[in-house]
């Protein structure tokens, strides 16, 4: 079976609701890497994941996973994908053991030994009811299930929301270990960009249903810059450089999409720094709200 070097390919994906539209979204997740999927609340991240899962029906576009159409080979594809959601969707009244009895038979590559090991590592007992688990433990259980059928692609929809820093760090360590073999891939959807600063290889950023960019994280952080300087440096021409800008009585701080150009423009008169993903998301979203264009 031919497989593309991209484990997930999304082309021209569109979905219309009454108050929101996902518009011609296109991006790929390369095999063996972690793709961070970022955007503010309501940007369309969960909608995109639901479209991948076929929980929502797309209006336009196509989705290929492992080189296969996501609808025509749905069962085959889902056998190789693990999902971790933002909420617990397992039956609260059932025990871990009962849930495992329900889920395991559906997967052709279920690894019982791996599942038992994950439970042991995460400190969970199979006789405990799902409702008795804390939020962090529910996420870990979700992860144990996702990892125990040797999934080639892990799709995670806001898995770290509401978790303490320790649990979040544990999750990120697990993901970093997971992709060591360069065979597994991860699509990590979140609005907590600090998690992705540490582990993501690629970033896809969407806002208001549209793609802002999809590229290697290091390239993005090299390309964008945060510029700080005196207010008198800002003229009409200089303002055009900015994706988003904020000013106060002391000066300005803004995000530019071309750091090199900003350096040439402002030279030594302004400070040009490496941004974080959070800076990029914040300024882009606020910048669009205040009428700034972005490249």
């Amino acid at each position: 079976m031919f497989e593309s070097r991209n484990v997930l390919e999304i082309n021209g994906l569109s979905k219309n609701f009454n108050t929101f539209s996902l518009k011609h979204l296109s991006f790929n997740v390369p095999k063996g890497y972690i793709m961070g999927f970022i955007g503010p609340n309501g940007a369309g991240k969960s909608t995109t994941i639901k479209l991948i899962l076929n929980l929502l029906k797309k209006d336009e576009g196509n989705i290929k996973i492992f080189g296969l159409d996501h609808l025509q080979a749905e069962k085959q594809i889902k056998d190789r994908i693990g999902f971790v959601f933002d909420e617990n969707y397992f039956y609260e009244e059932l025990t871990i053991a009962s849930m495992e009895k329900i889920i395991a038979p559906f997967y052709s590559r279920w690894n019982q030994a791996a599942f038992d090991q994950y439970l042991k590592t995460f400190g969970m007992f199979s006789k405990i009811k799902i409702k008795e688990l804390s939020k962090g433990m529910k996420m870990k259980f979700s992860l144990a299930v996702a990892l125990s059928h040797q999934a080639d692609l892990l799709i995670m929809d806001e898995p770290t929301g509401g978790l303490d820093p320790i649990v979040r760090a544990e999750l990120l360590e697990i993901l970093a270990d997971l992709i060591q073999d360069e065979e597994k891939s991860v699509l990590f959807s979140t609005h907590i960009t600090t998690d992705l600063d540490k582990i993501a290889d690629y970033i896809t950023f969407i806002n208001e249903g549209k793609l802002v960019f999809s590229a290697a994280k290091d390239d993005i952080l090299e390309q964008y810059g945060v510029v700080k300087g005196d207010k008198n440096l800002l003229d009409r021409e200089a303002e055009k450089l900015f994706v988003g800008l904020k000013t106060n009585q002391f000066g300005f701080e803004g995000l530019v999409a071309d750091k090199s150009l900003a350096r040439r423009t402002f030279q030594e008169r302004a400070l040009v720094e490496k941004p974080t993903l959070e800076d990029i998301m914040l300024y882009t979203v606020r910048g669009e709200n205040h009428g700034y264009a972005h490249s």
Partner: protein
Amino acid sequence: MATLILKDLMNVKKVLAFVLIYGFIMIFGFQNVPDAALTASTVAISYLLMLQACLRDDKNKSEIILNSLPLTRKTIVGAKYLTIFLYTALGLVSYLFAYVIVEIAGIPFHVYPLTLSNVVGVVIAAILMSALFYPVYFKFGYPKSNIYGMIIFLAFFFSRGIVLSIAKRLGNYSLPHSIERIIQWLSGQTEYSLALIMLIGGLALLGLSYLLSLRFYSTREF
């Protein structure tokens, strides 16, 4: 599909203990109309288990998990329809259990014996109740189908009385010739033939219901 049925059974296990004694409750409650206890018992238990399983699915938003597993929506719908037979069987077992205990222990309750036509009749009632409920459930989900389900249940719970009342009224009217001929033909059939005809008819309706549910669920969004 067996795993999905197991899933529903696990979700209703707390109710199963109640199912065992429900037959007694119906025999006691329908002492004035003992032949209605079988219908009431089977239909009520089928309804109870069916709704409880649907409630659990809804409460846990299980469509998210189920649709992330490598299985088709056809399988999900098919499993729900297969549970109809399981729940109906549990309803019959509940009544039979109570019947046997009452007879053996000599408890002074009027109990109606199980005959082929009675059993087939209540199985048809339970099947039809589910056949009417599930398309609405798969189209709209549990919260919106709940009240509708209750109305369907009450209609079938009291179906014996309703059917007899309608038959009595119809007896005062002259029916179209074709219907009269059908009724005459049915009256001339043996108990086994009649049971078979009713069963085939019920299963055919169930099949139509399944196709409708499948159509609704295949296009539903979550």
